[in-house]
């Protein structure tokens, strides 16, 4: 084989088919960008997390509970504390309102009471630069700058924490273990542990997080201590983690996001691959005559194969390389977008294994998708010279094998990128289902369209255009519809999430929540706020077992949705809330059914697979409570209104330790004043200004959806390339039609109308189908997964539809421009011989 000749010919092919080569190249680039960026980003975050893990948790081993540690745990901890080589420190975290001395302003703040020794790893940086432990002496507090700003104070000012006055000694710039908390409801205040008793705020029932931090000597591994502590821990409420095993909620959200983005990227890869295949097929088809002639002239079979394999190889190497570079740029962008949400600041670093992986995946994908058209060349005979362009190809056995291998490749890729087999199976089943449904819909639609009797000339020509020989309308319709489905579904889900958690904030929805009101304080509370409100008793409890099967905390924490092992708030009442209705069982409770019955909300019933008649065992501060499920409730509309998973008859819980919760709608400008009044009158009450939280959630949601939208843009781009590739594939047929129409007396406008309408039909049908499916999918996701009300957004849907159609038409039109310009005489000359 003459290499020089081969290379010259490859380059000539590239030059002669600029459009095809460009689309091919872009498809290859697109196929690796997303995965490269995500792989690198994730590896960097993981590395940073591991590097900073000790600091992130400020200790080697952390024991935590939402209740005071039980005696067994206390005893174990005490034993470690006695060891000279082990250091321990207790930490209590809770929210409370602080007030200025003149009561002019107040603010919900995140209090962290720490014992000396904290933090064992990392540092609490102070504005003064002086050591944290020296500054945080009894009677003094260290605060975040935000607190000073919001209350108009400065270092040296005094504030009320509950009814105790404290001096602000310094400003905290950073704390090592802060980033693992997801959303904070207020600025940080550090308090010395010796002031704890004085504060009197930490009363039983208020929401305190109890932590014990341990620093271990060289020879003692965190895992040994973890195991030892766990052996006596009450798993229902106590957790023990090492700095390595501890997993923040944020990290889980973050992992979910990355996983989702990866799925989108894999989807993009699939679309790009189909694009590669269709462009290559089209390119080779225009060359069939030439290749047959080359063969007839005695060129060996291998020469033709090598020529196009060389072309594909060249393009895929340059393409994947460019894709990887673009991916690295995207990785940097992703880091910037999500840096606030990631608990660590990952430094930008090229992760070579990730780069290698995406290069490999890219090349493999190109090879797989190029295999079918290239393998077809093997069967090319010189006799193709004499055959007509039309006619049908038989699918060969070898090509079926390629399809199978490609499918396996994608299944493998999905499984490889995910730690959870179940989700992977769901995803694959979902994609297959989606493609199946879309395929069937497209088939039916095209069949109907073909039969549609239409008298309108332009419309009929446009429809005919769709059935142009080798037009691949069906695959294009399927891929376009599937990608539009994905994009629309994300768009709609995001809109609904926003509506529920961010925008939709109906006039009467409460925006201030009052937690930890004590039982005797309700009258005083009503007096203070000056109006009545619904009081909800709250009993903190853990679900221990369902029908005798113990709830496994370790397994529950794996869940992506709410988990059964977290502490629940039980309540008691005998009526349904106005937005509740019963979906199983006749009434909330059964008359004469005794006290040991419970009504369950459908959401938790689904999570725990709880049915009517099941026996639930709870533990309320160590005291067990058994109850039978007598009704299942659902919420008729989702909102910010408080809700309870478990409702009991009053007699059952009246005696249990409890606090009272209520919510009010307060005009935003009045919130601060009300907060002050309530805290002055009832210092133990926690006031939650939800409007701020909502903004934080909205911000995070916004960033997440920005990232998601960005990645769906890639699959959109792949879909667009697909449209372009199909137009390129049918280029010669289109030119032929355009010329014939002109010769027969059609104006340019007519040709333009026909082509535009053809693209419009393609765009409209895929957009309409995609939109319908997207509504279905996001309806399921919203009502089943997020459990929020679903709105259809007709206006936004319509504009999405229009945008989809417009994009397809625009791409079609720009790809058809060259076709329209062809002069009849020129065409007739070159095609006279056919």
């Amino acid at each position, binding site marked *: 084989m003459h290499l020089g000749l081969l290379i010259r010919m490859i380059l000539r092919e590239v030059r002669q088919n600029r459009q095809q080569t460009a689309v091919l190249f872009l498809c290859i680039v697109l196929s690796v960008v997303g995965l490269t960026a995500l792989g690198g980003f994730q590896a960097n975050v993981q590395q940073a997390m591991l590097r900073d893990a000790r600091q992130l948790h400020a200790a080697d081993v952390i024991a935590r509970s939402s209740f005071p540690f039980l005696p067994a745990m206390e005893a174990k901890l005490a034993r470690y504390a006695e060891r000279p080589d082990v250091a321990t420190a207790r930490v209590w975290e809770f929210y409370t309102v602080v007030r200025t001395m003149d009561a002019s302003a107040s603010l919900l703040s995140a209090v962290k009471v720490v014992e000396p020794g904290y933090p064992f790893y990392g540092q609490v940086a102070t504005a003064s630069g002086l050591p944290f432990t020296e500054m945080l002496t009894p009677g003094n507090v260290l605060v975040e700058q935000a607190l000073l700003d919001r209350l108009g104070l400065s270092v040296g000012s005094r504030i009320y924490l509950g009814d105790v006055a404290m001096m602000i000694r310094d400003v905290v710039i950073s704390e090592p273990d802060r980033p693992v908390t997801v959303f904070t409801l207020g600025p940080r205040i550090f308090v010395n542990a010796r002031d704890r008793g004085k504060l009197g705020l930490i009363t039983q029932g208020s929401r305190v997080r109890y932590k014990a931090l341990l620093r271990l000597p060289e020879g003692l591994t965190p895992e040994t201590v973890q195991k030892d502590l766990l052996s006596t821990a009450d798993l229902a409420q106590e957790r023990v983690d090492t700095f390595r095993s501890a997993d923040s909620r944020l990290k889980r959200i973050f992992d979910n996001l990355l996983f989702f983005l990866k799925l989108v990227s894999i989807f993009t890869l699939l679309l790009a691959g189909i694009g590669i295949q269709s462009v290559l097929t089209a390119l080779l088809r225009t060359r069939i005559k030439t290749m047959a002639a080359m063969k007839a002239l005695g060129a060996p079979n291998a020469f033709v194969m090598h020529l196009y394999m060389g072309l594909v190889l060249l393009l895929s190497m340059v393409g994947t390389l460019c894709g990887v570079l673009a991916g690295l740029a995207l990785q940097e962008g992703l880091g910037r977008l999500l840096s606030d949400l990631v608990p660590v600041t990952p430094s930008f670093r090229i992760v070579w294994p990730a780069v290698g992986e995406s290069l490999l995946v890219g090349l493999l994908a190109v090879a797989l998708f190029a295999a079918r058209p290239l393998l077809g060349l093997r069967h090319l005979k010189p006799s193709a010279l004499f055959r007509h362009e039309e006619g049908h190809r038989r699918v060969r056995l070898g090509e079926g094998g390629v399809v199978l291998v490609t499918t396996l490749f994608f299944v493998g890729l999905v499984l490889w990128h995910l730690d959870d087999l179940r989700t992977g199976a769901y995803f694959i089943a979902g994609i297959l289902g989606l493609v199946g449904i879309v395929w069937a819909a497209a088939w039916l639609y095209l069949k109907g369209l073909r039969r549609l009797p239409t008298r309108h000339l332009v419309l009929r020509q446009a429809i005919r255009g769709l059935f142009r020989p080798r037009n691949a309308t069906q695959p294009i319709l399927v891929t376009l519809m599937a990608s539009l489905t994905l994009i629309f579904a994300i768009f709609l889900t995001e809109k609904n999430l926003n509506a529920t958690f961010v925008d939709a904030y109906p006039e009467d929805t409460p925006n201030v929540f009052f937690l930890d009101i004590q039982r005797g304080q309700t009258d005083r509370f009503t007096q203070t706020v000056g109006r009545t409100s619904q009081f909800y008793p709250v009993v903190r409890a853990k679900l221990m077992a369902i029908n005798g099967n113990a709830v496994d905390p370790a397994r529950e924490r794996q869940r992506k949705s709410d988990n059964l092992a977290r502490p629940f708030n039980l309540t008691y009442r005998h009526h349904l809330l106005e937005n509740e209705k019963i979906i199983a069982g006749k009434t909330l409770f059964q008359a004469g059914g005794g006290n040991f019955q419970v009504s369950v909300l459908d959401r938790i019933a689904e999570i725990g697979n709880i049915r009517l008649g099941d026996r639930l065992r709870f533990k309320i501060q160590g005291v067990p409570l058994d109850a039978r499920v007598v009704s299942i409730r659902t919420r008729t509309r989702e909102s910010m209104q408080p809700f309870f998973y478990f409702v009991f008859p009053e007699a059952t819980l009246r005696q249990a330790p409890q606090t009272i919760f209520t919510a009010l709608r307060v005009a935003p400008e009045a919130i601060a004043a009300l907060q002050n009044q309530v805290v002055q009158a009832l210092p133990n009450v926690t006031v939650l200004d939800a409007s701020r939280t909502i903004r934080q959630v909205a911000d995070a949601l916004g960033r997440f959806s920005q990232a998601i939208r960005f990645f769906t843009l890639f699959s959109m781009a792949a879909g667009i390339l697909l449209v372009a590739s199909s137009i390129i594939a049918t280029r010669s047929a289109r030119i032929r039609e355009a010329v*014939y129409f002109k010769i027969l*007396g059609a*104006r340019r406008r007519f040709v333009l109308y026909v082509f535009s309408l053809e693209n419009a039909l393609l765009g409209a049908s895929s957009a309409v189908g995609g939109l319908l499916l997207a509504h279905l999918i996001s309806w399921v996701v919203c009502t089943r997964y997020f459990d929020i009300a679903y709105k259809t957004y007709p206006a936004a849907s319509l504009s999405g539809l229009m945008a989809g159609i417009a994009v397809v038409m625009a791409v079609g039109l720009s790809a058809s421009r060259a076709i329209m310009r062809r002069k009849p005489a020129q065409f007739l000359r070159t095609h006279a011989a056919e």
Partner: protein
Amino acid sequence: MTIEALDLHKSYTIDDRRIQVLKDVSFAIAPGEFAVIQGTSGSGKSTLLSILSGLDRPDSGTVRIQQQDITHLSEDDLAPLRNRTFGFIFQSFHLVPSLSALENVMFPAELARTPDPADQARYLLERVGLGHRQTNMPHQLSGGEQQRVAICRALINRPAIIFADEPTGNLDSRSGQAILELMLEFQHELHTTLLMVTHNPDIAKRADTRFHLTDGRIAGSEA
């Protein structure tokens, strides 16, 4: 309808080399005439035909169809002319591959918004003996059948002039003969001007007028 050519010039430039294809070509064809253009391969017959029919433009000179100069008309102004006044028949048929035989024939009538285009198309197809092949796609038809469809398509709007570039060139002599007979039959019936490029001396013999193209010039015309 009269066709007049006045001082037509046409040249092509390939790699800085000018090829003068038509030099100073002038002639006229009377309405209802059957005229034939002959000449060796490469002599410029097809080029001349496409200039006369407005598919191409001359470098200089004028083409007048019924006193109207068509060389400066825009593509869109040429469209109604091509649709209603001209009919085209080519050596390689050039049927729209995505349309059935019937639809190919109907198409010009539909563009012209003639009432009942399908009836007329069916009538024509019956007359050329293709009544039973209406729904066939072009690739399902033989060359002779395709050409008969093309004739029907050229005739459906009753054009004043038919341009035919070697219409029998791709056919065996029997089918070619049949095609010629059909064309002449219709030409008589509709009083159409027929301008045909052909290599076939037997066909040329039957023409009212013959032009010879040599070296880009009309060498002679015989009645």
